[in-house]
């Protein structure tokens, strides 16, 4: 039985359970004439929950268990004796037999898979029926027991509401579980990396060449300083040089000078810049901005300029984060008490003087926080640098030269053909851990600055 059909049947059973138990509860109400503790629909929900929930949990458990049971039965088949004892080949033959059995593939690449396919199909069918039967049995049993518990005094509502509460609590715990999951997986894989490469080599080494790894001391060819420099140079220098003036000045113009009608139109238009997918920016940077910057560099007298320059990636990234800077600056300026602005204007200062000497100094912490958040977004940005930055690990102040970043190297390391346990792929997790820590730090500092600043005026 296919899982989808089973789910559909479970949903149908749940609906039937809800309808019949509601009718039964309503009958009690009519016959007994006394007040019931719960509404008929709450009784219905109670029984429906008992019908669906245990069966669903069992189904999930079965879905994780049954593939190994199927494999076990297939291995009993006489043809399975010819299988290679273990390793990649065995797994790929079994996977092919699975695809043949499912009918998603017709011609067999490996003849052994073809002979195993009928056994596989029989085993799948058998365990599919067993699992489906057990699921339905469980649904009917639990639903039946719950159905029999319906009495006028039965507190169905309390049961339903405590189930809802548990569901709410579990949902909110997923955020913690995710955070812990990220931290644990990064830490675990990085730990395995640092078991073969020294953290000192990784954090302070200036030689990055994952293609040719030193077999004796892998850390020597995995020094990440050029990556940190490239990330900082593209994300925190070039992108910020573009985004801070443009973002800040557009926020100032739109809040202080522009006609309200212009503001209502311009603000959403600028927000579109943050909504364009990064892969589109990356393509734009690689196709249009990169070659244009190369031509400028050639005109400036650098005939070997690359079209994958740090400037192209940084420039486009800067444009992408303009809305972040401008909306944070907007909020910070709006939070400055009007009395300060009015006082300055009343003293005869021009609007520009008021902004420069009164509003901006007062809003500075908020603006700084916005810049920090924007920087954290810029250094974590991936697609633009993957598509537009070069892979060359240079440490150079020349924006026309190529630079590579942490995120680009993570993608390059993990999308190659290397096996999973090599130092090369594990290094990606160490880079990810570094990136995670730095962005976390930036965010914590930014939130702290905003908090301190709010206290000053409220």
């Amino acid at each position: 039985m296919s899982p989808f059909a089973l789910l559909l049947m479970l949903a149908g059973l749940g609906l039937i359970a809800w309808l019949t138990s509601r009718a039964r509860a309503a009958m009690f109400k009519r016959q007994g004439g006394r007040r019931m503790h719960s509404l008929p629909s709450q009784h219905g929900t109670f029984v429906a929950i008992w019908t669906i929930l245990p069966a669903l949990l069992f189904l999930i458990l079965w879905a994780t268990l049954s593939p190994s049971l199927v494999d076990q039965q297939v291995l009993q088949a006489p043809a399975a004796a010819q299988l290679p004892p273990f390793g990649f080949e065995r797994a790929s033959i079994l996977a092919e037999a699975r695809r043949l059995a499912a009918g998603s593939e017709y011609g067999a690449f490996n003849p052994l898979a073809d002979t195993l396919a009928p056994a596989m199909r029989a085993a799948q069918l058998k365990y599919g029926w067993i699992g489906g039967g057990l699921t339905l049995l469980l649904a009917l049993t639990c639903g039946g027991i719950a159905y029999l518990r319906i009495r006028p005094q039965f507190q169905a509502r309390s049961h339903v509401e405590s189930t809802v509460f548990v569901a709410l609590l579990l949902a909110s715990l997923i955020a913690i579980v995710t955070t812990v999951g990220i931290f644990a997986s990064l830490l675990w894989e990085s730990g395995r990396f640092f078991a073969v490469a020294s953290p000192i080599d990784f954090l302070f080494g200036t030689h990055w060449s994952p293609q040719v790894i030193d077999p004796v001391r892998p850390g020597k060819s995995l020094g990440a300083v050029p990556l940190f420099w490239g990330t900082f140079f593209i994300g925190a220098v070039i992108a910020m040089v573009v985004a801070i003036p443009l973002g800040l000045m557009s926020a100032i113009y739109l809040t202080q000078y522009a006609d309200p009608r212009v503001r209502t139109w311009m603000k959403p238009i600028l927000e579109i810049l943050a909504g364009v997918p990064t892969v589109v920016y990356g393509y734009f940077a690689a196709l249009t901005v990169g070659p244009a910057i190369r031509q400028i560099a050639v005109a400036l007298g650098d005939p070997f300029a690359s079209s994958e320059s740090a400037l192209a990636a940084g420039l486009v990234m800067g444009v992408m984060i303009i809305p972040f800077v401008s909306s944070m600056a907007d909020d910070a300026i709006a939070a400055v008490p009007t009395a300060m602005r009015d006082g300055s204007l009343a003293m005869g200062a021009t609007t520009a003087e008021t902004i420069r000497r009164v509003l901006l100094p007062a809003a500075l912490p908020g603006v700084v926080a916005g810049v920090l958040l924007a920087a954290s977004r810029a250094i974590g940005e991936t697609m633009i640098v993957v598509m537009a930055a070069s892979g060359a690990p240079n440490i150079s102040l020349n924006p026309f030269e190529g630079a590579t970043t942490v995120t680009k190297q993570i993608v390059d390391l993990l999308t190659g053909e290397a096996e999973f346990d090599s130092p090369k792929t594990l290094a990606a997790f160490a880079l990810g851990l570094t990136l995670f820590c730095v962005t976390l730090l930036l965010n914590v500092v930014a939130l702290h600055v905003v908090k301190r600043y709010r206290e000053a005026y409220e």
Partner: protein
Amino acid sequence: MSEARPSIAEAGERAPTDWRAAAMQRRLRRRYASERRFRLWGLAAVVISAAFLAFLLFTMAASGIGGFLRSEIALPIDLKSAALPVTPEQLRSRGADFALASAGLENFVGVAVVRAFGPEGGDLVADNAWTFVRDAVKRDPSLLGQRVTIWVPASSALEAGARGDGPAPMRALAARFKASGMLARGFDWAFLTGTDSTDPTAVGIWGGLKGSMFTMLVTLLIAFPVGVLSAIYLEEYAPRNRWTDLIEVSINNLAAVPSIIFGLLGLALFLNTLHLPRSAPLVGGLTLALMIMPVIVIASRNAIKAVPPSIRDAALGVGASKVQVIFHHILPLALPGVLTGTIIGMARALGETAPLLLIGMRAFIVAAPDTLTDPATVLPVQIFLWSDEVSRGFVEKTSAAIIVLLLFLLAMNGLAIYLRNRFETRW
């Protein structure tokens, strides 16, 4: 008392500022000029930002519009002389493709091309031209006994010639065919219904689009309930204690974690620990669900917070239980805000590429996925893959796919704005 220090009385008797004096006028002019300059800087910043956006969209539109068009060339073919060994029953069965292929249709079409366009004719039609003949025969088996003209896609080189670039001989050839009515340019339906290919004239976005839909389905099914339920818990139930603070801090931090970190999580957790299938929409959807869940939680909390306490109190006052208050009164009133946040989160997930690269959704996949566990790719990853291709023909196909992606995002964001304006109540 020192003589040097002026008394208050003396300071008060200071001559009033002569605003008409030349020095003062100069000073005022300077201040006004600086005011105008500052204002101009602001305007310039807005204009530059908007101009960049306009330039970006214009570039994409200009280079992408051609990706929706395709040149087709009329191929005269005498299917009667081919005498293909296929029976009408075979053509009606599911194995029709296979039967026609093994009957040697591809070779025969190649012969027909050479007969029609000369020995170099193979360079004029796309590599998959014979599949168009095959589909035509499948639609109408009576063609097998006739001499017919079938429109097949032109090769990349002829396509470029028809647009006016590429080498001069090809341009001249294209012009000649066009003049004789044998070459026409029309809307490329195959671009919307086809899948990935190595030949730019044969590619389509349907594989990526379907993969995106499956992935978004998983994301929605996970992120929406979990996000809304945890927002309800945090706003309505959570006691003020350390655990609640921990949950809030986690959600706020998750919202700021770079997307690629979620890709690393998906790789380590879903693929290497739970052994879910690689490249599957299921894994992509789970990863993206974890990524956009904080967005939905934050938006839903704000929407729930905006429902006035009087509604809560009134419902509790007439005897509703807490769950009834929440699900009968608060949630329906907060729904527009919740849905707006969800759509914005989904739009973000739809445009996301980096985490999906890490969980293997970047493979070259020709078949559109049929289930959630089939290998698939998504539209943004498809764009990334095409942008890496060397062949010139992929440039406009990439831009065309970008236009489709942007249209989807525009529609989603437009829907969010409409919902917000139409249903949001100001209390």
